[in-house]
């Protein structure tokens, strides 16, 4: 039985059908690349899983729990999400991170400045990034920042929405390499060929 299951999902926006009897099964530890044309609901699938959008019909199951009012929190708290634009409110990067790790559920995570700086260095960001305002960051810097936050949160499932589009070739490789090495269940949305070329990836097409 899969860790994440979408069962006979129907979703429509007004007259536009996004999903009709959609099924998907993700096993624990799998790295799955979602592949579908634009507008076919790849990002929507992430939003459904986090309860940001509702299905018209069908069941979403995560770790044996069906998504509903009472289990919503479990879904959100065990899924690390990197949204397409890493939508952080504008404030200093460091303040933003401190806010995230002051949330009740994240408080137990020990985030030291050294740990952050190591990750920043690993992903080739300059250390002064933590003193910058979020809106000063480039697209690629935000994507790496989002990934770093996701890594520090250390949740079991990662949803990564276009985290390599703003990076140069070497950095794409480094990110892909890092992500695929993780002992996590990871769903990936990306237009970068570099993901699909990798053997560790299962491609889910629709």
């Amino acid at each position, binding site marked *: 039985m899969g860790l994440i299951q979408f069962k006979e999902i129907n979703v429509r926006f007004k007259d536009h059908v996004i999903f009709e009897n959609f099924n998907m099964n993700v096993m624990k530890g799998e790295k799955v690349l979602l592949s579908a044309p634009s507008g076919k609901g790849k990002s929507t699938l992430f939003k459904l899983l986090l309860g940001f959008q509702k299905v018209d019909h069908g069941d979403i199951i995560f770790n044996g729990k069906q998504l509903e009012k009472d289990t919503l929190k479990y879904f*959100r708290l065990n899924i690390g999400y990197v949204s397409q634009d890493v939508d952080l*409110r504008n404030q200093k990067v460091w303040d933003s991170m401190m806010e995230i790790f002051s949330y009740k559920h994240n408080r137990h995570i020990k985030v030291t400045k050294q740990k952050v700086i190591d990750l920043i260095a690993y992903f080739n960001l300059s250390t002064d990034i933590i003193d910058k305002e979020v809106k000063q960051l480039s697209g690629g810097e935000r994507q790496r920042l989002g990934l770093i936050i996701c890594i520090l949160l250390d949740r079991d499932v990662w949803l990564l929405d276009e985290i390599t589009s703003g990076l140069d070739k070497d950095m794409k490789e480094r990110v892909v390499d890092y992500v695929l090495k993780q002992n996590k269940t990871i769903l990936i949305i990306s237009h970068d060929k570099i993901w699909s070329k990798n053997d560790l990836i299962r491609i889910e097409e629709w």
Partner: protein
Amino acid sequence: MKGEEISYLSILNLLFLIVPIMIINYKLHMGINKKMLYAIGRMGIQLSLVGIFLQYIFNLNNPYVNACYLVFMIIVASFSAAKSANLSIKKFIIPLFFAFIIPNVVVLLFFNTFVTRLDELFSAQYMIPIGGMLLGNSLSGNIICINSFYKGIRENEKAYLYSLSLSGNKIEALIPYFKSSILASINPTIASIETIGLVSLPGMMTGQILGGAVPLTAIKYQIAIMIAILIARYFSTILSILFTAHKAFDDNDILHT
């Protein structure tokens, strides 16, 4: 000491000074003469009716009637807040009503008990004008804060959802918007407290002085009322968000206003 009574006829004298404005408007094709005269006429009728009504209530000075009048003002304020903030009346009128009535009545009764030290807490002469000033200020504060709060979330929906995914907790994700909307509501009041009297005399003080009070009495009332306004507005602001937010988000913490 009693202020000079003015007659309706003497008010009409002011209209002579409106004539040049109308001529300029006409020459410049500004097209606001009709609107301006309508507004003045409407104000005249409106305030005359309010005057007659208030005179009646003051003469009667029945605590129950006074309290009812206050509640009536609060209901009007609630509708007006919902309308100005584009909130559905059906869904939000009751939360707004409580957001107005709780802090305003508490502050008003506190004011009448400990500041003016009235024997009759519900005396029309104090309750209605002071209640009106508190309410009027809470109203503008609530409109600012509700607008800022829901607009902030709507315009930054992605950021809100992202923080929801990081925190899993609606309250934590909403706190930044909550804080900035309280600031938006309270900052203008703090600014006006700071500069009051330097540029223009506040309305209540002017009224009292014209009504025959000595300036030293008038400023004491003004100081007290400004503090009371700040308190009522602050709590009304907070409650207006807490009470409406209760209905504005669905089970999945998504905003629906």
